[in-house]
C-alpha cells in the first residue's frame, strides 16, 4: 500500500501569536515550528499501516527550506521518503494544486492529512485535493480501519458519529483518536538523515483568496469575582447582567 501524508509546518501550540508589517504578516520571531498536531496523527496512522513491510509512507510539504527540520522529524517518526514543493504556501488552493500534481504522477492508495492546520484552520487542502484527483474524501475522521481495497471510517457529526465505507483511493482528514502519536526513537532520528528528501519546484496557480489583515482578540474586561458563599449571586448576574440564562 502506497500512502501519502500531507504535512504542514505550524507554530508550536504554546506560541504567542503576534503580527508584523502593520498586522499583515505573522511574526515568526522566536516561534518554534512543529508538525501540525493533526498531521502528526495522520503520519502515525500511516506508519502504523505500513509497518512490517505492508506499505510505504511518503510525506509531502509545501514550504521553503526552513521546513526541512519538520520534514526530517516526519522521517524520524517513520516515513520512508519525503517531498518538498519549494514555495511559500499561499493558500489552500495553491497547496492542494501542488500536492495534486505530485499525487497524479504517483498512484497512492491512501492520502492522509490532518483535519485542519492549527495556524490558518482551513480544513480545505484535503477536500480540494480529493476533488482535483476525483476521488472521495472524509474531512474529520475519528477512526480509520483500512482493508485491502476499502476503508471503514468513523466521522464526527453534530451530536454523534457516522460510520461509512469507501473504496480506495481516498483522502482522509484525521482527528484525535485515529492513532496514538508516535515519538521518534534514536534509530529513527539517525536514519532520518539518510532518507531521501526530494525538492520539487511549484507550478503556477491562480490566486483566489488572500489574507489582508490580522488582529488579536480584544482583551476582556476584568473578572467579577463572586463569593463562594453567595452562589445565588452568580445566577442573578448571569440573568440580569450577562443575559445568558
Amino acid at each position, binding site marked *: 500500500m502506497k500512502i501519502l501524508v500531507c504535512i504542514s509546518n505550524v507554530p508550536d501550540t504554546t506560541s504567542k501569536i503576534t503580527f508584523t508589517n502593520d498586522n499583515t504578516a505573522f511574526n515568526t520571531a522566536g516561534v518554534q515550528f512543529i508538525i501540525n498536531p493533526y498531521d502528526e496523527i495522520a503520519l502515525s496512522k500511516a506508519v502504523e499501516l505500513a509497518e512490517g513491510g505492508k506499505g510505504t509512507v511518503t510525506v509531502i510539504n509545501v514550504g521553503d527550506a526552513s521546513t526541512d527540520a519538520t520534514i526530517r522529524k516526519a522521517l524520524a517518526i517513520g516515513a520512508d521518503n519525503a517531498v518538498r514543493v519549494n514555495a511559500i504556501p499561499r493558500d489552500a*488552493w495553491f497547496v492542494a494544486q501542488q500536492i495534486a500534481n505530485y499525487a497524479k504522477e504517483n498512484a497512492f492508495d491512501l492520502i492522509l492529512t490532518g483535519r485542519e492546520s492549527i495556524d490558518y*484552520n482551513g480544513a480545505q487542502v484535503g477536500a480540494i485535493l480529493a476533488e482535483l484527483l476525483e476521488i472521495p*474524501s472524509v474531512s474529520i475522521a475519528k477512526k480509520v480501519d483500512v482493508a485491502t481495497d476499502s476503508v471503514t471510517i468513523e466521522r464526527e*457529526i453534530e*451530536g*454523534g458519529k457516522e*460510520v461509512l465505507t469507501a473504496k480506495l483511493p481516498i483522502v482522509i482528514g484525521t482527528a484525535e483518536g485515529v492513532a496514538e502519536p508516535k515519538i521518534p526513537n534514536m534509530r529513527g532520528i539517525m536514519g532520518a538523515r539518510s532518507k531521501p528528501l526530494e525538492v520539487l519546484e511549484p507550478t503556477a496557480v491562480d490566486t483566489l483568496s488572500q*489574507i489582508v489583515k490580522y488582529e488579536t482578540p480584544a482583551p476582556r474586561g476584568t*473578572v*467579577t469575582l463572586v463569593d463562594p458563599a453567595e452562589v445565588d449571586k452568580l445566577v442573578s448576574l448571569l440573568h440580569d447582567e450577562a443575559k445568558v440564562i
Partner: protein
Amino acid sequence: MSILVYVENTDGKFKKSAFEVVSYAKAIADHIHTDLTAISIGQVAADELAKLGNYGATKVLDVNNEQLSTFVNQAYASIIAEAAQHAGASLVVLSNSFSGKGLAPRIATKLRAGLADGALTVPTIEGEKLSVKKTAFSNKAFATLELTSSNKVIALAPNAYEVKEIGGQATVEAFTATIAPTDLSTIVKEIVRATDKVSLPEAEIVVSAGRGLKGPENWGMIEELADVLGAATACSKPVSDAGWRPHAEHVGQTGIVVSPNLYIAVGISGAIQHLAGVSSSKTIVVINKDPEAPFFKVADYGIVGDAFDIVPKLTQALKAYKGL
C-alpha cells in the same frame, strides 16, 4: 450577483445552522440588492421547506432523493455547484459544520471559487472583492480574508450569526441534478446519535471540566449542572488524553473550538491551548480553587473555591431560579 444557500437537515428537520445560514445570507442579499435561493438535499417535507421563507429565502430548490437522505460528500458538492449555476449564483453560503467543512472546498473547487471558511461576520463587498473576518491560529487571532475570484463560497462558523425571522414566503421548486455513479462512492453504514445530549459545537451553553475534578467518577455533578442549563458537556485535553472523557468532548486548540453564549469552566487552569478553543464564547464563568489560575484573566465571572462544594450549590441555585 445572486446568492445560493445550502441548508442542512437531520432526518428531514432543518438544523439550527440551516436557519443561521439563511439569515446570514439574507443579510448579504439585502446589502447587494439580490434574491436568495436556498437548496435542500435529502427528504424534507414541504411544510419544513416552506419555513425557510421566514428567514429570508424567496425560492427553495428541493432535491428530494432517497439515495441522498444521508450525507454523500461528492454528490452533494456536484448538486450544489450545479444549482449555483442554475440559479445564476456567484456566491454560495453554507454552514462550516462537520459536513460543511468537507463540502465547501469541493464546491469551491468545482466553481473555481475562493473559499472563506469559518466566517464570523457579514462580508463587505466592493465590486468583485469580498472581505470577511474569520478565526486564525485556532482562535488566538482573527484574519480578514479577501476573495478575489468571480465565484465565491462562504462557510459560516456555527453560532456566529443570530437567526432572524422576517416573516417572508418562499416558493418550493423540485430540482433534479445529474449525479455520476462515482459521486456515490462513500456509503453510510450507521449513524449513532446521543439523543439525550446537546451537540457541543452547536450548544448555546457549555459546562466544561478539567483535571481539578480528580477522576472520571466525579463527572456526575458536571452532567447534572449541564442538565439544568440544557448545556453540552466538555472537557480539557488532559482529561480526554487520560481517557476520563471521550475525545469528542475535548475543547481547545487541537480539539473542538466552541463559541457558546455561556461557557462554564470547572477545575480547568486555562492553558493557552484551552483558551484558544473558548475565547470567542460570549460569557465565561470560571470556578477554580487556585486564585492564580490563568483562566480568571479571561473570565467574565469567577468563583475561587472548591468545585466539589460550589458546583452542587450552583446546580441547586439554578434549579431554584428555573423553578425546578
